[in-house]
């Protein structure tokens, strides 16, 4: 019984050490000093921003406009996907949010030839 407890103890210690070493390695800390802690990673906004789109005379989407993008989102990548009723992508585009004062309107172009009549949803992402 004592032997079994010893082995289980070794297993537990080894497991915890391996998790810590692996985590430290992924953070690029190597053998340097390591301090533990936690921090909340927050995006530039948590709101579902509103978008509109423009069409040409043939009814094809020419651009998507996302309004009231916070200034804090400057330099982040805003991507949009046009989806049909099955949530299949009909076209996508992305751009870097520029610097502006107050709420920005970000315009995305280059979706290809997509009929607005087929677009029933827009999917967006903001990534740093």
């Amino acid at each position, binding site marked *: 019984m004592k*032997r*079994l407890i010893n*082995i289980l103890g*070794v*297993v537990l210690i*080894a*497991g*915890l050490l*391996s*998790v*810590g*070493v*692996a*985590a*430290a*390695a*992924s*953070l690029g800390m190597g053998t340097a000093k390591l301090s533990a802690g936690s921090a909340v*990673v*927050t*995006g*530039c*906004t*948590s*709101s*579902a*921003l*509103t*978008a*509109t*789109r*423009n*069409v*040409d*005379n*043939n*009814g094809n989407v020419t651009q998507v406009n996302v309004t009231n993008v916070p200034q804090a989102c400057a330099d*982040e990548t805003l991507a949009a996907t046009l989806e049909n009723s099955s949530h299949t992508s009909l076209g996508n585009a992305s751009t870097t949010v520029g610097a502006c004062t107050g709420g920005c309107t970000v315009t995305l172009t280059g979706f290809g030839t997509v*009929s*607005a*009549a087929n*677009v*029933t*949803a*827009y*999917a*967006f*992402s*903001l*990534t*740093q």
Partner: protein
Amino acid sequence: MRRFRLTPLRLAAGIAIGTLAFAGVAYAASLGLSSKKLHVWSQTQTKGTCNQTSTTAFDTYVQQGSPNSVAGGTATTLRIDGSTGAQDYAFIRFDLSGCGIPTTGGADSAALTVYVRTAGNDTISLYPVYTTWSESTLNWNGLGGLLIGTTATTSFSGATTGTKTVPVTADVDAAIKAGTLWGWELRTTGTDTVVLGSSENATAARRPSMTLSYEK
């Protein structure tokens, strides 16, 4: 030094240590992926149609030869002529307020239909109007108070009589976002007279109409 012997217990311990180490690496990898900030959201659109007939149509024509005349507002036809000193311009618009489309919506497709009663060898061009006008008061002298696009949105041939349908999606989409559709000025540089049916025409099929599919 004691010789190491592989017993069942030691074998089990080795497997357990390896498993935990693998889990640790996977955990670290997941930390690496989540170090980028990400915000995702979606927006669903509602589709609808709101076709327009003479009930919501307003139209008139103005005459250079009678610059104070507002008779076009009640006429059963709309005259278009580009003759120097005797030009006639027609105006057509629809009241979309009954459609309930917010300014965040837009047109998926829109097409204007008119009926050519008297043909002429002219191309009729449509210019978007951006400011308010009334069919009961607009005359030639009032044109200066209107903001009209400098580029024609679309055109059709007036060379034959009958129904003419032209796409006006971009203009209607822009008008929805602006809040009001002020319609189009129809004019030509040709010197023939082209006559269209107006919303007051006795024959319903000869009145202007517009199909509209939208999203909101």
